[in-house]
């Protein structure tokens, strides 16, 4: 019994009431960092075309994104890879860099998602596709939203 008495005299127990809050804070930390990892758009946010026959992209870690859209004050379509505006010729280096980060056996599964604006030209997309073909990155995905296809062709 003497042991108990001793404890009562000693330092007061640390309150664990704030422990869940600390855990929450950690959770927020991870929430925030996952958002920050996404690339910041240098181009105007592409307005994705709509489609009905869409498939969900599985395993996001295997997907690399190419953005195509307009930049304010500049004509023509711009391609964004990672955090910067790039040239079509840089696409292959971008894919090579993506491949570096994956184990060998996952490389054939890598998918390139093209997030292009509705008003982009098909020419730009074809240039990208040609580059991807050259380096054998054959799985692509035209990123679209779910919706009525007729919205794509409506005149603004």
């Amino acid at each position, binding site marked *: 019994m003497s042991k108990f008495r001793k404890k009562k005299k000693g*330092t*007061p127990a640390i*309150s664990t*009431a*704030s422990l*869940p*809050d600390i855990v*929450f*804070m950690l959770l*927020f930390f991870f*929430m*925030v960092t996952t*958002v920050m990892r996404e690339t910041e758009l240098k181009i105007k946010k592409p307005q994705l*075309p709509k*489609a*009905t*026959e*869409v*498939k*969900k*992209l599985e395993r*996001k870690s295997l*997907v690399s994104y190419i953005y*195509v859209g307009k930049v304010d004050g500049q004509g023509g379509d711009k391609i964004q890879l990672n955090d910067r505006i790039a040239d079509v010729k840089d696409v292959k280096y971008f894919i090579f860099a993506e491949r570096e980060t994956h184990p060998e056996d996952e490389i054939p599964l890598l*998918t390139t*998602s093209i997030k*292009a*604006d*509705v*008003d*982009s*030209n*098909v*020419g730009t*997309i*074809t240039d990208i*596709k*040609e580059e*991807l*073909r*050259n380096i*054998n*990155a*054959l*799985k*692509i*995905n*035209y*990123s*679209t*939203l*779910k919706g009525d*296809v*007729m919205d*794509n*062709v409506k005149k603004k």
Partner: protein
Amino acid sequence: MARRDLPEINAGSMADIAFLLLIFFLVTTTMDVDTGISRKLPEKQPEDMPDPPKLKEKNVFIVTVNRNNDILVEGETFMTIDKIREEAIKFIDNGGGIGNPMKDAQGNSLDPAECDWCQGAKDPASSDHPNKAIISLESDRGTSYGTYIAVQNELVGAYTDLRNRYSKETYGLSYTQLLKDAKNNASNESLKEKIKDIKSKYPQIISEAEPTK
């Protein structure tokens, strides 16, 4: 040492702060689900490739989209986007002749045969068999991406419609439903077999031609 009777910090409001933050991030984060039309690009052919086998013109369904986003089907008919699906279905499902040899469940090649699941017009001037029918999408560099995607969507939609129909008649469930079921229990082999069968009955052959300059 902090042995002395430190006044305890009131942690009661901690939870409120945490919740405030949680709500803030809940509101600001956008959970964008990535969806899209998946495609597999053809492999790069070597320069000295022998010429590809000649295709009969009747087995190719050419959809052309020009720089003004006008859609031309088979080089003669102008068409609006909502009509393409119907036309594509008519073309794929025509079944006017003998198809390429198919494989049965054991992987043995069967003799080339007619398409006995097709319900098309069996017009000898249109496609022979779904596995011979090729849809070719030609575009111009100036075509708008939106139109291009819309046309692609309709072409994929035509195949989905046909697969759904075939699947409903054979297995009593639509193809989209089968796919959903297969995703929910990935170990179900019979479902996979069914999907494979449907895919082989209506293989999706869409070629994206290089655009005109």
